[in-house]
Each structure stands twice: as C-alpha cells, then as structure tokens.
C-alpha cells in the first residue's frame, strides 16, 4: 500500500509500470506475439507438436513467474502496481497459477486434435495464450477498466476459438452465438462500470470500496443498478442461471478441446472478476448483493442438475454439469466469508482438472470429425478402451462428489462455508442437487460399462454425420452396410490415444485422486489466497 501511496503522488504523469508485477501476463502476451511472428517468418513445416510444446513451456514459465509473485506476496505482503490498476495478492496469484495450468493442459489436449482435424497451426495457440492473458488480467484487475479489458481479451479470443473448426457448421454457429450474447453481456458490464463510476467517482475497485466506507449514499439507485449490471455481465461469463442460455449451445458446437479449456478458464476468470468486484468494492453492500447471489446460486444449482437429466449429447450434458458446478461456486460466494472465498477458489482449482480431463476423454471419443458426442457413443467403451473408460468414470465420480477425490472436498468446502454462514437452505439445496446430478454422471458410467450395442439406425446416422462433418481429413473407409468396424462405436475405429492427451488424462486423474487423499496443499493454498486478499 505504501507503493500505492507513492504512485498516487505521480499525478497525471504516465504511471510507472512495475513489469515484474505483471510478469505472467507479459510472458503470455509476448509469447503469443512471438509465436505469431515466428509462424509468419518460418512458413515451412515445423516438427509436429512444436506449437503445443512451446505453449506448454510458456505456460510453465508463467507458472514459474506466478510462483515468484507468490513468494513475494508471502514475504512482502500484497501490493498494487501500475497506478493501482493491478493488485498483486494471494488471490491474483492463485488464479495466475490456475489459468497457467489450464493453458498447459489445454494446449497438450489440442495438439493431436488439431492435426487430426486438419487445423494444425500456431493460430490456435496464439489465441489460447491471449485468452489466458486476458483471463489473468481479469483476475489481477484492481480497476473496473482493467476488468473490462481482461474480460474482452479473454472473450474475443474465445469467440474465435469456439469457431475454430472451420468445416463444422456447429462450430461457426457456436462462435456467432457466443459472440452475440457475449458482446451483449460485455455491453451490460460496461454500462455497469459507467453507472458505478457515476455513483462513486472512481473505477478503482479499492477506491470504490473506500468511497462507500467513507460516505453514506442516501439515494443509491444508480449504484445498485451499476452493481447489478456488473453482476449480470460477469454472471454471463460464468454461466450462472438465468444468464446461461448460451452455454449448452456453445459447449456443444465449439471444438471439444476448446470447450474443455473454455469451461475451465472462462469460468475461473469470471469468478475471479466477480469475487474481486463483490469483495473489494462492494463488501459494504453485502446485504444488497448477498440475496441476489443466493438466488443465482439456487437457480444455477437446480437448473444445472435438472436440465442435464434430459440431455442426450455428452457435451451439452457437460455444459449443464458445469452450470451445476458454477452453482456450487456461487454457494461459496453467497456465504460472503473468507471460508466461502477459499472454498470457491478450491472448487475452481479442483474443477479445472476434472473438467479438462473429462473433455480430454470426450475429445478422443468424438473421433475424427468431432461428431460422436451422443451418449450412445459411449456404450461399451469400457470393453474396447478400459483405461479411457476408467479415467472417465473416475472423473465423473469425482464430479459427482465421491469421497477421497478433489470433487468431494470441493463440494465439502463450499458447503461447510455455507453452513458456517448459516445459509442452511442453500446448503441443503446444493447437496440435493448433487444427488440429482449423480444420476446423469452415473448414466454415462453405466453406458460405458454396459455391453456393446447392436448396430442400430441411429448409429449409422451418427456415422453419416461424422463423415459429412469430417471434411477432407476423413480417412474412414466408405460406410458399407456390412462394415461393423466402422458402424460400432467401440473397437479400433478411430479412437487414437496420443501421448499428449494421455499425459493430460494422467495428470488430471492423478491430481483428482492424490489431492483428494492429501488435501492440505491446495486447501492451504486456497485459504492463503483468500486471506491475502
């Protein structure tokens, strides 16, 4: 804070930029630009996997930089930088780590997919790194303008990523849908920024908080409207009901690795922004926003659990499941205590691994053309691909909250926060929604372990779709009537097991179990992050 004071004296002069404080974001942005540059300079073919591996290395560097910042924060305390626009505290660093990890996993996951679909190239990774940088800015922002900057950087890169599969109509449709609704929500957010500025005279989160602490706002309609709009804008990003309508369509249409990455990063960043705005600026208006968040949480839990029951497409199902998970994180927020925040943070960290791992399986099972996403396509998977099925079963069990996995501890930490804050009805609702959600996770698990299907008309249709959508890269032999190898979704009919994806699966499964058995490190991390706010 002393640094902030010094910076405050510099007046209107261009602010001093403390580059170390934004090192992870810089690493990602610069690496993205360099990669673009390199790609245009060396047009010749690069060894396969170069882009993905470079991205993973960059993500690792950004983890290293975040680690350094974590060390700084622990020894010297939280501080702000760049004229108080950016906060370097435990909370920021937590999200910097989380986003870097998600980026590395997403890059490894995408590598084979892009080659398989004939989309290989550096652009995907450039966009991923930029979106991650945007997400990081959102997480470290200490100013509504920076929040907006991060939000837009993240979103615009994600719009393009959602439409990255050029030859799939669904992909473009998802991108358009995401873009239109996303732009709308950004506009709402921006209007919220304007109203908040009008009411408090600042866009700086800390200063807004200080203003509210120092002044009695008699007629606070403008302020409340601004806050509501900020919540709506960020609520859209995290797909909180009733701002969730885009999410099933976009999850379904976007290329599967993008869906996994997006589910992890956009959600984490959105919650980072929401937490920051609510706790840094509006913590004094708690009595105003707490009921709103509680209602959002309840709706999100219920819709996420119930609507998923009738889905027949795995990606839509996962979309609703992720809505249900968002509901749990909102339960943590609604508690409005430091236990609630650390519970929400832990939840997001655990969820990152569970969701990227799940989408890694979905990517593989989707096969060439990225089209086999009906639940029926999972029938009998265990027979042909026991490891894949076992990992997916593990991750789904974890998502449903089975003990000795991070999934349970995540639910436990937010529920216990809600209980400590005495919001018993919300806690009970959340647990019951988890019971309902178990139904659809179990359905997938049952299908995987059920016996192999008989060839049916629907399966042939699925094949036709996959052929039609596959584009030039399709290498399936023509689907004759007596071609069981191609008709059956099991067996050696196109599920490749690339090492990078296996690595992702291994990491996600190992993290989910190991941190479930030995929870102290991440629980402590989340707890410290919420204390060093």
């Amino acid at each position, binding site marked *: 804070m002393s640094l902030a004071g010094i910076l405050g004296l510099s007046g209107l002069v261009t602010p001093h930029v403390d580059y170390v404080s934004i090192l992870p974001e810089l690493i990602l942005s610069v690496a993205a630009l360099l990669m673009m540059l390199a790609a245009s300079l060396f047009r010749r073919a690069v060894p396969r996997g170069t882009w993905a591996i470079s991205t993973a290395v960059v993500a690792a560097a950004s983890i290293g930089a975040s680690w350094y910042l974590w060390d700084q924060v622990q020894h010297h305390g939280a501080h702000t930088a760049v004229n108080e626009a950016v906060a370097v505290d435990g909370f920021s660093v937590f999200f910097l780590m989380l986003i870097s990890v998600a980026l590395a996993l997403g890059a490894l996951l995408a590598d084979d997919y892009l080659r398989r679909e004939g989309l290989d190239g550096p652009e995907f990774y450039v966009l991923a790194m930029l979106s991650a940088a945007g997400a990081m800015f959102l997480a470290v922002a200490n100013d509504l303008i920076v929040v907006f900057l991060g939000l837009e950087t993240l979103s615009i890169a994600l719009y393009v990523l959602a439409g990255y599969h050029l030859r799939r109509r669904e992909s473009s449709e998802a991108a358009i849908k995401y873009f239109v609704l996303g732009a709308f929500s950004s506009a709402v957010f921006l209007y919220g920024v304007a109203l908040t500025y009008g009411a408090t005279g600042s866009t700086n989160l800390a200063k807004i908080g200080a203003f509210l602490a120092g002044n009695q706002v008699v007629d606070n309609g403008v302020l409340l409207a601004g806050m509501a709009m900020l919540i709506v804008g960020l609520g859209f990003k995290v797909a909180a009901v009733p701002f969730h309508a885009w999410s099933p369509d976009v999850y379904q249409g976007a290329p599967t690795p993008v869906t996994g990455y997006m589910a992890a990063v956009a959600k984490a960043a959105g919650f980072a922004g929401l937490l920051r705005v609510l706790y840094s600026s509006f913590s004094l208006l708690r009595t105003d926003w707490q009921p709103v968040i509680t209602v959002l949480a309840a709706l999100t839990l219920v819709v996420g659990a119930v609507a998923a029951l009738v889905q027949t497409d795995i990606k839509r199902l996962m979309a609703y499941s992720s809505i249900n998970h968002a509901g749990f994180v909102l339960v943590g927020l609604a508690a409005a205590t430091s236990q609630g925040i650390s519970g929400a943070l832990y939840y997001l960290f655990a969820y990152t691994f569970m969701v990227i791992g799940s989408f890694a399986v979905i990517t593989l099972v989707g096969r060439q053309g990225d089209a086999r996403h009906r639940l029926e396509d999972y029938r009998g998977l265990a027979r042909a691909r*026991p490891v894949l099925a*076992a990992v997916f079963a593990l991750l789904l*069990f974890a998502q*449903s909250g*089975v*003990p*000795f996995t991070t999934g*349970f*501890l995540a639910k*436990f*930490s937010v*529920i*216990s926060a809600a*209980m*400590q804050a005495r919001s*018993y009805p919300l*806690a*009970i609702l959340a*647990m*019951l929604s*988890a*019971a*309902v959600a*178990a*139904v659809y996770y*179990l*359905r997938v*698990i*049952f299908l995987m*372990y*059920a016996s192999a299907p008989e060839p049916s008309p629907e399966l042939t249709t699925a094949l036709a779709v996959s052929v039609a959508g596959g584009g030039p890269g399709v290498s399936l032999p023509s689907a004759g009537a007596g071609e069981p190898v191609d008709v059956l979704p099991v067996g050696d009919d196109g599920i490749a097991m690339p090492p990078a994806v296996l690595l992702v699966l291994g990491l996600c499964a190992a993290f989910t179990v190991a941190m479930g058995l030995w*929870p*102290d490190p991440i*629980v*402590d991390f989340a*707890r410290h992050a919420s204390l060093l706010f």
Partner: protein
Amino acid sequence: MTTLLPVAQSTAGGGFGFPILPAIVIVPATMAVVLALLPRSRQELARWLGTGASLVVAGLAIAMAVRFRTGQAGYQFVVAHDWIRPFGVQWKLGVDGISVFIVVVTAVLFPVAIAGPRVDRDIRSYAAWMLLLEAGCLGALMSLDLLLFFLFFELTLPPMYMLIARWGASPRRSGAATKFFVYTFAGSALMLIAMLALVFLEARSSGHVTFDLLTLTAQQHLSKDISILLFLGFAAAFAVKVPIFPFHTWLPDAQVEASTGGSMVLAGVMFTLGTYGLVRFCIELFPGASVSMAPLMLTLGAIGIVYGFLVAVVQTDIKRMIAYTLVADLGVIVVGLFGFTAQGFSGGIYQTVNHGVSMAAMFLLIGLLIDRLGTSELAAMGGVQKRAPIFAAVFLLVTLSVVGVPGLNGFIGEFLLLLGTFLTHRWWAVVATVGVILAALVFLWAYQQAFHGTPRTGRVGAELSARELLVVAPLVVLIVGLGVYPRPFLDRINPSADRILARVAVVAHNPPPSPPAASGLPRRVEAQP
C-alpha cells in the same frame, strides 16, 4: 456427562507390532488398486489375489477381535493422525464393543462374496470393486472422526453401484443401481449437512472446529429442537441405508437386480452399516433426541415389520421375497434398539451381526440355486432336495437361523430383542413377535416351494461342489457358533451397549431443556441370559 464416556486407554497397537486398524482398511484398498492396474488377461491371478487379500483382512480382523479386551466400554486399538488440518479432520480409527463383531463379520463375508458366487464376466474388476467396497465398509465401521466416517460411508457407493450395474442380471439393473445410488446419496447429503451443523455449532461454543467423534459426543450444548433436527438429518442417511420403512423402496430392486455377490454384500454388509450408523451416530450423539424420536422410529420399525412380511408373502420371485423380509427383519432390529433396554440394545447389536451372516449366506445360497435352475420364480422351482440333499440341508439350516430357531444365531438376537422390547414397549413387542412368526411362514414356504415336491422344470439342481461347500462353511460355522455360545460375543458387546444406554438414561433422567419422553423412562434390567 463426560464421566459416562470412557475413552479407550489402549495403546495404538493394542499388542500388535503395527497399527492393525489402518492395516484392515489399507490392505483391501491397496489390493483394489493393484487389481485395477493388472492386465485384463490375468483373470485367474486376479481372483486369487482378491480372495487372498480379503482373507488377509479377515485374518487381521479376527486377530483384532481375539485381542479385544473384554469388559471395557471404550474404544480400543485407537490410531489418530491429523489429516485435513484446515478443517480439523483426523484420520482416527478405533473399535468398541458395538463395532468389533460387525467388523469381523464384514471381513469374513468379503472373501466369501469374492470367491463364492459365479462371476460371469471380468472377475478382475469384480474383485477390485469388491475390495474397494470392503475398504469403505470397514473404514466406516472403524472411523472415530465424523468426516472420515462420511468419506468411507460414501466410498461404498461407487463400488456398490458398479456391482449392481455391471454384474447384475436383467436390463433393469441400471435403473435399480441408479436408484440405489441416488437414494443413498440424497440421504447422505442430509447427513453431511447435519454433521456440519453439529460441528460448527460445537465450534461456536468450544472455539475450535473438530470432527472428532469423542469430543463431539462429550460436549454437546445443543437445545432440544436443534438436536432433534440434527438427529433427523443423520437418521435420513441411515434410514435409507438400513432401510427403514418409507425409505426402503430401493432395496427390493437393488437386491433383485444385483448379482449374487452384490446381493450378499447388500444384505450382509450394507444394512449392517446402516444399523451401526443408527447406534453410533443417531443414538450416541443425540441421546436426548433419540428418546424424543423413539416413538417415531418404533412406529416406522413396526410398520416395516408388518409391511415387509405382508408384501413378501405375495412375491413370486424368491429374491424379491427375501428382500422384503429384510425390510421386516431390520424393522425388528430398529424396534429393539429404540426400546432402550439393556437386552433390546445388546440384542439389536448382536442381531445386526447375526443377520448380516445369515442373510449373506441366504443370498449366496439363493444365488447358487438360481444359477442351477435358471429361474428365480418360486413357481418354477421344486424338488431340489431329491437331487441335492446337502444343498437342501445347508439351505434349511440358514433358513432356520433366519427364522430364529433356538440353537442357531438368529434365536439369541431375536429373543433378546423381543424380551427387551417387551419390558418397555409391550405392544410393539407383540407386533414384532407376530412379524417373527410371519417370517417363519415366509421362509419355510419358500424353502418348501424350492426344495420339496417334484421338479417343475427340466433342470434340477446339482449338489454343492466342494468349492461351494468350502465357501459356505465359514458362514455355517458362524451361524452355529454365534447361536450355541453367545457369551464371548455378548461379553464384549455389553459394556459398550451399556455405555450408550447410560448416556440415554442420564439424558432422559436429567433432561437439560426437555421433558421426559412420552414413552417413559427406559428401564434398565441387569439380567443376562
């Protein structure tokens, strides 16, 4: 009130050179992982490894029970380590008279369930899930930390789900398995809420968050209303698991759809776990609320008895018929427990053990019978006795044990239960006795249908093979042993049962905020049969 809560004095090893209780949990869990990693081609090896590991666990459990000190009410072999420090969760295990024989029976049943039934596909995964289930059950039975208990309790769900969904018979098994999972999960969800509420309410008065069972039992400053709510939250989980009457509907489906091994474990272990939970958590943690809620529990138990047998009589499928008698038998146990008398309480715990053994044996034999005849319809059975006299004899023995014929285990438990209930709740005892008579009717009728008369289909049962005899033998030994010489068992159960009853009595005598329950004060009678 703390004087009533003797805490175990024994050292960590209890005379063993190593912490035996963690070993009982870790051995099956580790072997489950090993089996999961084993190549799928090594099915026979997996069968042997699975059976071997579960036999080791059984050996450990029996050794533990042998070293268990008689006449002590507290927990023994206690092991405690910090686990999730930020939440105050400990890895704390221990056994007392309530749990010791349930642990032993559970550990003995699993090798039988792994090696006994015919498993028609993927014995490797079957054994792995069984062992994971065993780790969950045993862990839950020995946990002295509420959250640890909850974790183990929940850990039983995925394996049980898989055992029903993958190794079950008919296409309806998916629905049955899901129903089982969701019912239990929902019940557990309420328990988790109640658990957290209890912990945080205690933390508010004591200043630090702990899930330690002993600490929470010792210091409770809850008002009557709150403790009743918490009691109901815990009871929700166990009422589904036991199951008690209106929450039983998942049971017949799950029992019928599960494979033989799955049915055995459900009948022999899962329900046992539910009853154990009622005693350990509902009654011991909330003695006051238990007394207030006793009329409700007694009523539900009694309804379960009558309902279970009446529905059982009209079933045509042998597995479904026996499944409904389970509802009734468990109702008898609930009535005995909530009568709060020395005999009823000890009898309830003893009968929980007995019932686990007998019912597991019953479902194993029914599984063998169905395998032989290719049908589970009673009407299509008959005449097995002529071809397979030994099979019939064993089946009859198990049937008589369930019915409660003197000299076998069921008699001791049921006698104590009915005697205890009669002392305080005469009319409930009448209902329960009628139920017990009906049970004889149902079981003997089923036996007669299946084994007597003439074969009604072309297939008649073959005699028990040597392997099958070997597998059934330990259960038969237990059935006779528990029936003929109950004293060593009751001597170990009684002190702990008395400890809990003393708590109940004290709370009922000095009701902190509550008037005595309508049913009157529990009368304690010293006599031992």
